[in-house]
């Protein structure tokens, strides 16, 4: 009786896990299967194995250029926002000055505005700086949106670094910049990877600014380029090429996460001062 009860429990648990798996993986499964089929429409079961869609994605638009643009914008965003966030969070976490808490709360408050709310203001700014139809406009706007959370996450981590470590470096004769680059950044490595990854994903997938600030095909980033893929006629959705393109641009993200995942875990378990 007891064994039966345990058995049913296990079966129910397995079913729940299965349901969850199907629920999360199904969209990706459809995307991959559809991308591999010739012809129109989406498919539930793979019928043939055809890389035609992948080839056509690159043939019919400057898709390689689009990927390059996306990479440029994303890496640029990550680099600039990490640089600013690290220096800002050092000040916010370590230097005592008047209005520190107010400043932190303002930073948080800014990040609560929805993208649409700042779109027109951002557009004016982009025009003013002469960045319209330039990838610089995207780096600028993505940095604005990734900075608040980067600063918050890094400030929290920076506060967790023992004060002794900083003072040991001061006694060793390190300047604030040397403390940041030679001591704090290596210690904060897992936090930097996490915030960098989040900023990267945000920039890589962003659509609204990308479609507003960029005009020409050659300057487009991937999400916009995918939305511009058109079929044989006005009434036909070219699912095959769209899915192929989506798979192509998701792969770099997955690779990045896989590469850094181990580093993140390693860093978190390393332990900073005492053991």
């Amino acid at each position, binding site marked *: 009786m007891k064994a039966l009860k345990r058995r049913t429990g296990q079966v129910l648990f397995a079913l729940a896990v299965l349901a969850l798996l199907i629920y999360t993986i199904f969209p990706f499964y459809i995307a991959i299967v559809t991308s591999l089929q010739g012809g129109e429409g989406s498919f539930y079961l793979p019928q043939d194995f055809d890389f035609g869609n992948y080839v056509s994605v690159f043939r019919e638009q400057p898709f390689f250029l689009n990927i390059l643009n996306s990479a440029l914008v994303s890496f640029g965003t990550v680099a600039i926002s990490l640089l600013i966030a690290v220096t800002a969070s050092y000040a916010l976490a370590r230097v005592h000055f008047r209005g520190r808490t107010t400043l932190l709360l303002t930073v948080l408050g800014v990040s609560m505005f929805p993208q649409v709310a700042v779109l027109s203001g951002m557009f004016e700014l982009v025009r003013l700086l002469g960045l319209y139809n330039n990838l610089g406009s995207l780096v600028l706007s993505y940095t604005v949106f990734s900075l608040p959370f980067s600063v918050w996450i890094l400030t929290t981590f920076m506060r967790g670094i*023992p004060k*002794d*470590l900083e*003072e*040991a*470096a*001061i*006694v*060793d*004769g*390190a300047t604030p910049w*040397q403390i940041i680059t*030679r*001591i704090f950044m*290596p*210690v904060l*490595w897992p936090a930097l990877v996490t915030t960098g990854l989040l900023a990267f994903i945000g920039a890589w997938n962003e659509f609204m600014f990308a479609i507003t600030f960029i005009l020409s095909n050659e300057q487009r980033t991937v999400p916009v380029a995918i939305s511009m893929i058109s079929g044989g006629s006005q009434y036909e959705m070219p699912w095959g090429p769209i899915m192929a393109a989506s798979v192509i641009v998701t792969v770099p993200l997955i690779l990045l996460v896989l590469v850094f995942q181990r580093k993140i875990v390693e860093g978190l378990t*390393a*332990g*900073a*001062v*005492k*053991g």
Partner: protein
Amino acid sequence: MSSIEFVKLEKVYKGLSDFCAVKGVDLQINEGEFVVFVGPSGCGKSTLLRMIAGLEDISGGELYFGDRCVNDLSPKERGIGMVFQSYALYPHMSVFDNMAFGLTLEKGSRETIKEKVEEVARILQIDHLLDRKPKALSGGQRQRVAIGRAIVRQPNVFLFDEPLSNLDASLRVQMRIEITKLHQRLKTTSIYVTHDQVEAMTMADKIVVLNQGRIMQVGSPLQIYNEPANTFVAGFMGSPTMNFIDVEAKDDQLSLRNGQASRSFPMPFHYSGQATLGIRPEHIELQPQADAIPVETRICVVEHLGNETLLYLTTDLCEQPLVVAVSGETSPEIGSALSIYLPLERCHLFDARGDAVRRQGKVTVS
């Protein structure tokens, strides 16, 4: 190497109500001396150390290294080496890089850095650990690396901020001896902060006892033990702590505030008024003595430490039980009566403000 002089050094933390952590401290530390700052938590000893290091701003007074005022100099310019309580090793660097960090910032050549680090590592017997990361070291090894990092730049002054409090008891004794040996070898002026009086007594050339931001007494370990300047020092240094008995002194006569009858004794102090008599547990005798105050007591608690036995005795002289340290093992019956004798030679007298009354020479009890 240099001597250090404090002139009316002060530290005030500004806030809603200003908190004064160090109040007008004057102190002279000679070149090559090993000075221990000791006191209860919050007495300002760490703040004082950090002011010497340059990690804490000086609110008032002057600090001299030799004859150079260093108030506005950075820690690096002062030429100090510091060992932190938490070791504060850089977790991502190897032992070698940890020790070499300060030297690389000074842009020394690779060979000289390697030479210096290896020499210090040999002295501290950590030369086989140079490639390891701090997480792969034991507590004692980390402590050695932290000391090595401080030594390698050949500082004028060594500062230790409770460096042994994270180690276990046996390792602490071992490291204590090694730090003392290291000081004998390097002869660098050293300041050592601790709340452990055993460390203070064993390591120091000079002990500075601090309380509430003020210096209570400065002196050699034995001076502090034998001639405490006030009740605070007398009660803080020594374990178990000194017994205090309220007494009244008049015309060189001491009367105990005994419940039933008061008896007077001639005393080797010249003082009149309310006073406190202090005597250390290890100085109380169980055998009748000449020139001693006899006290009738009752045993309430017995603590066996192996090498000695502590007896807690209730008397009608004071509310706190008197503590007596008896060498060896004895197993007296709890509740039984015991006569003890307080030799006048070993007694300390403190006036109403708690300051020690100076001794007047030998007096005999008739």
